């Protein structure tokens, strides 16, 4: 069975992929027509963005998704705060909370998580991110350098698991100390959250191996993705483990393929192609990744279609990864089913705007997936 998650934007949303303008949340200047906060009488209506996150979570729950990924960056709202806030207004929705080991102490993470597991009935899921070091890390007050980061992640996950127990545990690690860490019995009895692990290099696999339930990747063209799976499998096999895979995918799915491409074409028409060609575009890194899969210049929207229905220009239309699927509901579902055949065990899907697209994908794509699992907490 395949767990299909949705995504909750933690820093606003656009109302359409056709125009790059954030109209939901307060990350862009407020104006008439904006939502959460809305606008009236010349000022914001005071509705917190949390209300919109709640709407998206409920939409995903109603539409048949098992839960949603809640990313974490310096400019986003915090996913632990948001997940805790929304536990009581959802029933089956699993909160996949992104965090880095550098943010929290293993025992603190265990206490926080076990409490949320108890309240939610086991609906917390981790997206563990190791982070790359450098200025972004020093923003967080995290000085551990690149090479030691996976070692720290491994130690963190180890101590997190060990402190999830009723008997006091002590440990003197390289990065963390546990002194009589434990959980009260009823909290220690809570299920340990599933771990979606971001990173699939040999160093990552060595670190995550004993702990990762899923290796999470962004969508890439078929060959690149299956090569990655093969490498992770090989490295895991050497350690005696069988890995599972999750892929995060943006979707533009419509009744007809032509309608889907029209959405993307509209958005693409706003892109400065000269700037893009000269590498001056803001998202040149993401696009460069897409262009490594194609020949020749990018003149038309379809030039970034690296293989049927896999389009590499998403980062031009909204913040985030490059590749996503464009097509009719049948075509998109077929690609997703194909990925399952290639070894994918879970999906994190996304579409702009997240609230409305959750219904569309839930109405028309999910029913066409061959193996998606029912909603409910993991036991």
């Amino acid at each position, binding site marked *: 069975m395949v767990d299909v998650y949705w995504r909750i934007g933690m820093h606003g949303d656009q*109302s359409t992929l056709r125009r790059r303008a954030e109209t939901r949340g307060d990350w862009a200047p407020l104006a008439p*027509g904006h939502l959460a906060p*809305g606008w*009236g009488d010349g000022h914001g209506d005071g509705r917190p963005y949390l209300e919109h996150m709640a709407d998206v979570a409920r939409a995903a729950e109603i539409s048949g998704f098992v839960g949603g990924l809640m990313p974490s960056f310096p400019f986003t709202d915090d996913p632990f705060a948001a997940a805790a806030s929304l536990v009581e207004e959802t029933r089956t929705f699993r909160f996949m909370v992104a965090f880095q080991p550098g943010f929290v102490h293993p025992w603190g993470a265990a206490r926080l998580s076990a409490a949320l597991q108890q309240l939610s009935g086991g609906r917390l899921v981790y997206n563990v991110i190791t982070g790359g070091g450098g200025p972004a890390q020093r923003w967080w007050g995290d000085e551990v350098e690149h090479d030691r980061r996976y070692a720290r992640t491994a130690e963190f996950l180890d101590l997190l698991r060990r402190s999830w127990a009723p008997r006091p545990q002590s440990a003197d690690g390289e990065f963390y100390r546990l002194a009589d860490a434990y959980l009260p019995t009823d909290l220690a009895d809570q299920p340990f959250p599933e771990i979606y692990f971001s990173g699939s290099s040999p160093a990552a696999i060595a670190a995550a191996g004993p702990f990762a339930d899923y290796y999470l990747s962004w969508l890439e063209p078929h060959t690149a993705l299956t090569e990655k799976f093969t490498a992770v499998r090989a490295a895991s096999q050497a350690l005696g483990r069988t890995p599972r895979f999750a892929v995060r995918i943006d979707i533009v799915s419509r009744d007809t393929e032509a309608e889907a491409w029209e959405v993307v074409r509209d958005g693409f028409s706003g892109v400065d192609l000269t700037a893009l060609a000269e590498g001056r575009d803001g998202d040149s890194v993401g696009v460069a990744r897409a262009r490594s899969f194609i020949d020749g210049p990018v003149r038309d929207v379809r030039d970034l279609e690296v293989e049927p229905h896999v389009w590499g220009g998403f980062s031009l239309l909204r913040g985030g990864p490059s590749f996503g699927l464009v097509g009719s509901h049948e075509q998109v579902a077929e690609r997703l089913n194909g990925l399952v055949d290639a070894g994918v065990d879970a999906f994190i899907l996304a579409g702009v705007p997240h609230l409305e697209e959750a*219904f569309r994908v839930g109405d028309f794509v999910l029913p066409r997936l061959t193996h998606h699992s029912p909603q409910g907490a993991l036991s």
Partner: protein
Amino acid sequence: MAKEALWYIVPSDGAYPWEPEGRRDVDLDYLTQLAASIDSLPYSGALFATAHHDVWVLASALAARTRKLRPLVAVHPGLISPVLLAKMALTFDDLFDGRLIINVINGDSATLRTFGLELAHDDRYALAREYWTIFKRLTAGEIVDFDGEHYDIRGAGSTFGALQPTQKPHVPLWFGGSSAAGLDLAGEVIDTYLSWGEPPEQLVSKIDALRQRAADHGRSIEFGLRVHIIARDTEREAWDWADHLLRVTSPQTFSWQASRGRDSDSVGAQRQHAGHGGRVPDHARDIEVSPNLWPGFSLIRPGPGTAIVGSHAQVIERLQEFEALGVDTFILSGNPLLEESRHIAETILPALDLPIGASA
């Protein structure tokens, strides 16, 4: 300037919910989200349509999960005692801070007969006049004695105890009905008259006639426009969607609706039917009755059958024209209701310059 916009709630939703393929599962969770969505947007309330759910039960459930949403609740006069109805209305307002609006429905004789009420068209209006007079006095807090053709009541309201009116002067009554008897009723007892989407020149004569009738009774009356919206970035996309709706609708749906339109004794339904005679056009635009005004939904489903179809800018223009004619209230809808409530709030409502919190 328009005073407010309402959205629409009916326990059946999807891209084209009149066909099984276009319908999504609707349960309390979904309806709650729909209501919460409307509550969070610059709508003052929602029209609760009569469908397979009883609207009172549905409106109560959703009022409990919202803070400002005013439900416009459909009531057929005569099916329950006006005194009991007044008690329900006062209770609702007591629990939910005076948010109730009653949508007076006179319906058609065939439907009422299924509830055991046998009344010819004009008799319905005679009963309605008595019914709503009693209701208004009770929801204004009076103890009512009434001696009429249909009702003979003594001491109504004397058992309501601590139940006091929340809204002044009484729970508002909205109504839409195009027959002469309906217009007379509106002039006499109704606070807001609702019209389905009609070409502006037709609407303006209706508004004038209503104003005159109300003035005859020493009253004033407000106007609401109930219209469906298909708004897209471009005009072409909007009409493509209208064409798409005609394509995905089954022959059975068309023929069922055609027979309903033909046989109804509702003047509104007859008028709409006359617009196209029940014939399904090859192209949606073939029946565009005035710029961007499309009666296509009357081919598909009962109730208000007119949509404004066009680019966002065109839809705004049409609504502003209606505003200029004296429309105070818009009741808008689009499918799916949840997604379109946001889409319209983002693209159309800002241009209507509605006062925020007009209702709450």
